[in-house]
């Protein structure tokens, strides 16, 4: 089966500073793929170059078989690739409902937006309870759910999650991982970056290890979990 997302030998960076060197990875339809690696390895940078936020310096980026280099993030989103940036960023001065509604800005049909909202509320009942609350006043875990819900509003084929559990309380970490598993079961293709490597690899089909902006290891979730070196470096022994 052809990959839904594929990046091949990608170089990228900020201004003239190159961060990614010949990075390659791919995600097949309905797969859950995890990217791990130390802080500063270039994991977020990889997501940003895929979404068209930063300088692409070389290599191929294909989504659904089509080249998406040079497109704006909103155009890439419209192709069905959702993205939840690192740091659970929500529109603080808007209500939960407004945040979700704006998440589907590309969708002109109001009925469809309402349907998507129902779907998100089903997935995150907590958001339904807080529809009218200002997003800035919610807890970190709730904001992360809102950020994920917002990205789901366009009903994307694939979602990129950057450190979804970062800085959350253990209870919320468990909940977020449960939601990711649920979404995967429904058939959503997912690529995620996680500090919580062991846990993320457990729910992933495959994983990549990035280091200093380069591919270091690749393999099935299980392989990486059992790999001596990976265990020592990222899984705490």
């Amino acid at each position, binding site marked *: 089966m052809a990959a839904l997302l594929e990046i091949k030998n990608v170089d990228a960076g900020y201004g003239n500073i190159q961060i990614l060197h010949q990075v390659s990875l791919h995600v097949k339809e309905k797969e859950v793929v995890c990217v791990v690696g130390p802080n500063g390895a270039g994991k977020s940078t990889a997501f940003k170059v895929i979404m068209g936020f930063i300088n692409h310096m070389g290599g191929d980026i294909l989504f659904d078989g089509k080249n998406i280099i040079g497109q704006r*993030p909103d155009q890439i*989103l419209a192709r069905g690739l959702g993205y939840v940036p690192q740091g659970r960023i929500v529109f603080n001065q808007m209500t939960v409902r407004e945040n979700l509604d*704006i998440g*589907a*800005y590309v969708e002109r049909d109001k009925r469809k937006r309402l349907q998507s909202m129902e779907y998100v509320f089903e997935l995150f009942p907590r958001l339904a309870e807080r529809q009218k609350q200002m997003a800035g006043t919610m807890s970190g875990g709730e904001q992360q759910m809102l950020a994920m819900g917002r990205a789901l509003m366009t009903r994307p084929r694939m979602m990129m999650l950057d450190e979804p559990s970062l800085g959350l309380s253990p209870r919320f970490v468990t909940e977020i991982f449960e939601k990711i598993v649920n979404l995967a079961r429904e058939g959503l293709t997912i690529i995620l970056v996680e500090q919580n490597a062991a846990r993320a690899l457990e729910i992933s089909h495959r994983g990549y290890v990035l280091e200093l902006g380069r591919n270091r290891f690749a393999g099935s979730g299980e392989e990486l979990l059992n790999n001596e070196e990976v265990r020592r470096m990222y899984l705490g022994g």
Partner: protein
Amino acid sequence: MEKSEVRSIYLLAGFLVFAYALPFAVGVWTDSIFYDRQWLADLATVALSGLMQGGVYAMFAVGLTLIFGVMRVINVAHGELVVLGAYLTWVMFNMPEWLGIDVYVDPLLSMVVSLPLAFLLGYGIQKLLLNAVVGGPELTPLLITFGIGISLVNIVEWIFTTDYHTIPYEPDAIHLTASIAVGKNKVISFGMAFLISMSVYIFLKVARLGKAIRATAQNADVAMVCGINIYSIYMITFGLGAALAAAGGTLVSIQFGFNPETGLQYTVVAFAIIILGGRGNFIGALIGALMLGVIENLIAFMVPNGSAMVEIAAYGLMICTLLIRPRGLMGAKEG
């Protein structure tokens, strides 16, 4: 709120009280205050027309704060857009006479044409000159708008010369009591300014496009992954800002004289207001505008030869706010 935050807002409030008391102190010192009925009525009249003038100021401050809030662009050409609006109104007001047609064009009606024109101009400026540099170093767009401002002054001067113009409009006064009165043109301007700013406010709050503008102001990167084309939002925002400036220009034209160089004064006024109110904050701009309008009129009233001192009010408020509390009354914390 942090302690230093609370302290800075108290300091700013204290400074404002001081600023308002100052003209009174000067008045006492120079014996220009009389405690009789007539003087109190005059004071009420002055405060009222200050408020009315503040309404007009709000018109262009709101545009400036919108442009800053969404794009972090400091539009130094804002006052020139105000003056351009005034000239457009003047042209349309006089057009029938030049053409020898006997109809009366209400200056306010000219906005039907001048606002869309200003919108298109702003939209074009953003598209052709600013979109490429937004998000980079903040100095670049500032210098570009500076260039635009100077070009506008010269173009307007080339077409209309440096003569002062005014548009005679509703010269009667409205009497609230026997001795408190305010010009009808001022009241109409204020009403118009109120109506337009409220419409824009409601548009930003409830319309889908308005929400997209607010989302872009809050976080452009996330707005993009919500599917918002921020460059198109930028063009619409600059267009809207320019249209608001032009609306301010129409209101200026029916109560004050203007020539191509008046623009700078309004740029400064608009700046002082949004710095006082909090850069990027809509309500802050409205409050700041009313405050500046009142204090300018108090100074002109109580300080001997005060009209020469009026401009100091804007500069003073601006500099002191920057020193005491750079984010102003209601601005978001930077960084």
